[in-house]
């Protein structure tokens, strides 16, 4: 029983990381059908922001707290720049956005290598987040994982509320459901796209801050994460966040239990097979947005 709950928690915490990364991706992919391969590099930007801030603010707790909003803005700004300079021209060609943003991600990785050096760097975690909490029944839960879980939960709640309650959220949903109709109704879709890209990329920055708690920071850290995050979005379905949330945790638990029963590498293959099998059942993902759009 203890083992089972321990594994479950490991899975949930893998899922929380996945969720944090996939959340921004789901937003931009859902809104514009744009596949942003440079999303991984925005994560990296968030992580390096934390690293830089820690050089200035030496108290690890404070630097982490400051890093969260700063990374959001840094990554978000990068996202807006990318959207304005390149992606805007490619809305009709989703596959080409994938390739173009891959080119951008190559450039950003090399930039990171030139600025910070190719070896990985490390940040210090705040005292508060280094320990474990012992729960009754001999289960221990790592504080940093708990923090990431809370961060992911907070991001989901904030995003859901923003989409439900604010004017901007209403506009975003209108554009996702039917872009042409939204434009005809007087919504400045280009501006909505830019804002969405800012938020989506900013969430990648937050994910980057969270990842500094789990491991080293390096120029290629984004590449490995981005594929998993894309799988979450694909399986979750487009246009609704609940699919992303459910699938992120489901894949996390599957990965963790697969790892427990076999090895890490076999577990990865198992996850892939499960995804292909799932798509046989629901090719459009878990939840699909119903629209009357002809596209």
């Amino acid at each position: 029983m203890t083992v089972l709950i321990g594994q479950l928690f490991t899975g949930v915490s893998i899922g929380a990381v996945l969720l944090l990364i996939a959340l921004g991706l789901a937003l931009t992919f859902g809104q514009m059908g744009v596949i942003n391969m440079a999303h991984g590099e925005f994560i990296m930007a968030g992580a390096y922001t934390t690293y830089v801030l820690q050089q200035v603010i030496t108290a690890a707790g404070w630097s982490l707290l400051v890093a969260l909003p700063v990374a959001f803005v840094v990554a978000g700004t990068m996202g807006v720049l990318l959207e304005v300079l390149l992606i805007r021209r490619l809305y009709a060609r989703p596959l080409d956005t994938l390739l173009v943003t891959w080119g951008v991600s190559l450039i950003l990785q090399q930039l990171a290598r030139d600025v910070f050096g190719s070896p990985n760097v490390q940040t210090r975690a705040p005292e508060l987040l280094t320990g474990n909490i012992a729960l009754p029944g001999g289960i221990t839960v790592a504080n940093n994982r708990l923090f990431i879980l809370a961060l992911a939960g907070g991001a989901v709640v904030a995003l859901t509320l923003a989409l439900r309650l604010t004017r901007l959220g209403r506009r975003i949903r209108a554009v996702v459901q039917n872009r042409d109709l939204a434009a005809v109704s007087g919504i400045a879709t280009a501006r909505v796209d830019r804002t969405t890209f800012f938020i989506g990329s900013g969430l990648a920055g937050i994910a980057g801050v969270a990842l500094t708690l789990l491991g080293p920071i390096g120029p290629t850290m984004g590449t490995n994460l981005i594929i998993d995050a894309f799988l979450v979005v694909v399986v979750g379905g487009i246009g609704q966040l609940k699919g992303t949330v459910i699938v992120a945790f489901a894949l996390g638990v599957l990965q963790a239990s697969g790892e427990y029963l076999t090895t890490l590498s076999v577990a990865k293959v198992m996850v892939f097979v499960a995804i292909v099998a799932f798509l046989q059942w629901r090719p459009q993902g878990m939840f699909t947005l119903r629209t009357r759009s002809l596209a």
Partner: protein
Amino acid sequence: MTTVARDPVTDAAPAPPPATPAAGPSRHRFRAAAGFAFGAALLFAVAPLLLSDFRLSLLAKYLCVAMVAVGIGLAWGRGGMLALGQGVFFGLGGYAMAMHLKLADAGPGNMPDFMMLYGQLDELPLWWRPFASPWFALPATVLLPMAVAFVLGSLVFRRRVRGAYFAILSQALAAAMVILLIGQQGTTGGTNGLTDIQGFFGYDLDDPVNQRMVYFIIAGTLLALLAMTRHLMQSRYGELLVAVRDGEERVRFLGYDPATVKLVAYVVAAGMAGLAGALFVPAVGIISPALIGIVPSIEFVIGVAIGGRATLLGPVLGAVAVAWARTALSERFPGTWTYLQGLLFVVVVAFLPGGLASLVGLVRRRSDPPADGGPRPGPFGRLRRRKVEAAS
């Protein structure tokens, strides 16, 4: 929506292919044969005469990449399936060949050297054993990738998973395969891969004469694949493939099964990548996860995009040019090359979606008005049409 009338399925079937409006079929065929002969002369006579042994073996390596590119051109440029995981098939072919050569190097009854080092295995794993026989290993280099592509492709295309979803899935396959290979270090060589391959069916690979032979085999194979692909592209099937790319639903309504059409192109492309991987092993002497993961898989696509995805020769020339530029530039300026590669990719895909080959088309169209006296397309007519094609 205005492009509907130009769709090859609905109205253009009896007309000659739009790429060469002035050429009749016989002149067209003559031009192709002349080009083929020129290419063969270049590869078989000029290159071996002019290049040193070292450069020639580099060229052999680039030609292997070009073989993968031909397949990607077929699947992506013609069929609209962005296959981002071709490294998987390249790797399957490469590992199948390398396993056979390792076993042949070790001699009958012995085990490859790395297995004793990492694996501490007492005997050869079961799944290695068939590869001792060349009669199994050689067909496997092509059939194994084709089988994997068939399974994934039929699962995915039948359920109408396409576009970005397919691209991401094929990429995830590459990621999963690399992790699997690294994880099974004892039997696959892990991160190092299968290295230090000495012999090639009884010939010593250190001997420059034999390296030359390997080059000739590779050049010949590439030419054969090009001839085959040209044939395929010009056949009725080729028309159908383009039709599926431009309007899958319409093809379905006409009574064809688009899933089968796509599957054929994807499986053929996988076979080409497998063959390329198999020939890469004797040319370079190594196959490893680093050569087949996500990054190299996308790099295969880069050359195709830059050369021109929808043409026959564009992918070949693009792949060779990019591979050559990488070697030439990354030795001296490693950082600069990465910037250049990224920039080239961004600029070409975003602003010249037909690749460099479309520049040739633009020039030719200006000097060569359509024979039927119809309206001449504007200088960007071709590019604009591509945009619409890619959107569907």
